[in-house]
């Protein structure tokens, strides 16, 4: 039964989250996730000589969404931008003393928000374009953000995605993503995983159509 049991650290960061709010004219800002899926995070950065001088976040979501936002901004504050980029959702979860598998996706979202804000800063101030060609490896990285709530592991590492194809320019249907994902009929999170796949891929402009099939092998 996915009834959530939070550690005291999580409750502490939930009750009194650090770095809440919106920075005046931030050097980098980004919003990831969506209220539709019950989870959204906005991260704001102020950078001085390549260090994160100030950072804040806003959140729409459950207790772990708020707690992970708080811990990630704590970890990133004062770090050189290059080191902040290396922060992983596992660092956040460990700092919080663990998260139930069903809530791991919140820490992924918070780290995602931080990286997106950094990319926003880099493209605005350093002219680095993060235009990455949208291909299968790009999609694989995106799908690594989809965590299976029962396992607490992303669907790529959990080897649930059995087939992935992206038709780019020159193929018959450019923009079409075909995925086969293995989920048992009695898996209570079957619906949730499919929804998250659509949420992540629909955010990519080059993706026109998503054909996600569930297989059972």
């Amino acid at each position, binding site marked *: *039964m996915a*009834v959530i*049991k939070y550690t005291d650290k999580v409750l502490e960061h939930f009750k009194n989250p650090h770095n809440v709010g919106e920075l005046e004219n931030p050097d980098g800002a980004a919003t990831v996730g969506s209220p539709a899926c019950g989870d959204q995070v906005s991260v704001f950065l102020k950078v001085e000589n390549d260090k994160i001088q100030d950072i804040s976040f806003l959140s729409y979501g459950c207790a772990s969404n708020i707690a992970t936002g708080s811990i990630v901004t704590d970890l990133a504050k004062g770090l050189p931008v290059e080191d902040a980029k290396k922060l992983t959702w596992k660092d956040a979860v460990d700092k919080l003393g663990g998260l139930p598998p069903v809530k791991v996706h919140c820490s992924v979202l918070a780290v995602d928000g931080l990286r997106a804000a950094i990319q926003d800063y880099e493209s605005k101030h350093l002219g680095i374009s993060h235009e990455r060609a949208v291909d299968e490896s790009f999609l694989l990285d995106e799908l690594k953000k989809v965590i299976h709530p029962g396992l607490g592991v992303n669907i790529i590492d959990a080897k649930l995605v059995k087939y992935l194809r992206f038709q780019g320019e020159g193929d018959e249907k450019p923009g079409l993503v075909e995925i086969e994902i293995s989920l048992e009929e*009695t898996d*209570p999170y079957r619906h949730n995983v499919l929804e998250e796949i659509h949420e992540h891929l629909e955010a990519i402009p080059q993706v026109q159509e998503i054909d996600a099939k569930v297989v059972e092998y």
Partner: protein
Amino acid sequence: MQRWLNTEIMEVYMDHSATTPVFPEVARVVYELMTRSFGNASSLHFKGQQAKEALDKAREDMSLALGCEPEELVFCSGGTEADNLALFGTLPENRSRGLLTTGIEHEAVLETAHHLEKEGFPVFYAPVDAYGQVDLQAFEKLLSGPVSLVSIMMANNEVGTIQPIAQMAQMAHERGILVHSDAVQAIGKVPINVKELGVDLLSGAAHKFYGPKGVGFLYVKRGTPIHPVVFGGGHERGLRSGTENVPGIVGMARALSICLQHMKQNTQRYRMWTTRILKACEQLGEFRANGHPEQRIPGTLSLSFRDVNGESLMEWLSFNGIAVSTASACQSHAARRSISHVLQQLGLERPFANGTIRVALGHDNDDEQVQYFISRLEEGVRRLRSMNHGA
């Protein structure tokens, strides 16, 4: 009606195979959860958390006691529901393969097997010897038939014989066949480790081991393909929907742990009393003890007396304050069989089968009660025999 009795009536309960009184400590735990921390395990808030923690702890304790992992236990309303889930939940939709069981199973498996036959599933019944143990050669031959599930009870409810489950599980697994065992009569009385038994599914019912009525479990080994038969909110990993009966489950776990603490001592007590009872029965003459002499649930005795009607002997004992059950009566009006399907399968001659009672000793019995029972039994048998051949 008391006028001819020379001794005081003593209330003695010796039908523990039918049901058992709840341990006082278990009743207290159930009350506590029923009235105060009554939270629903599925809810999030701390009221729910209290129930959730109690449920998780119970699940852990029981899995430790049975030698499995907590997620491998599916809680339900009792042994009957667990057996139905084990059979209906694993047999293939296309009826290509069916069930291998025995003719001496408890109705919860036997009636389900009969229904499956009506639905077109192949069902095979392995023969048993005079003690009630499965004939392993015949069993092995039957395994080569269209079988996808073996369901054989760990111990028989009437004669107490314990089946060689581990051997049968090994033979079945060599052919990729799932194995379920109804262990309702064995749990709390003999040590059980599901990994050592090697079964894929195992059912139990709390009211047989001094736990609350209306709660039981099915052990489902991780990875066993099984689908639910009760649909709804997706509780118990979707295998048994419906709000968890937290007070019942916690009571069941507590009852099992108490039984395990007393198992060694109780087994010795029951063995000692069994020897004493059997000795008295031998002296009465024209007597059979049914079930395997050693591989039998300690404290379970199936006693057959020639030229005695089992129901009359039971009534005589009942009148003297002693509760036992009889396997030979149209007493179970629904079945209206003259003698039980188990005794028939064991090939017991009819004059003996008709005079059969089942005595199931329990935690709450003591020496004085056993002595009182023996004296009443002797008098009852002599009395009833005198009625028909002027002994």
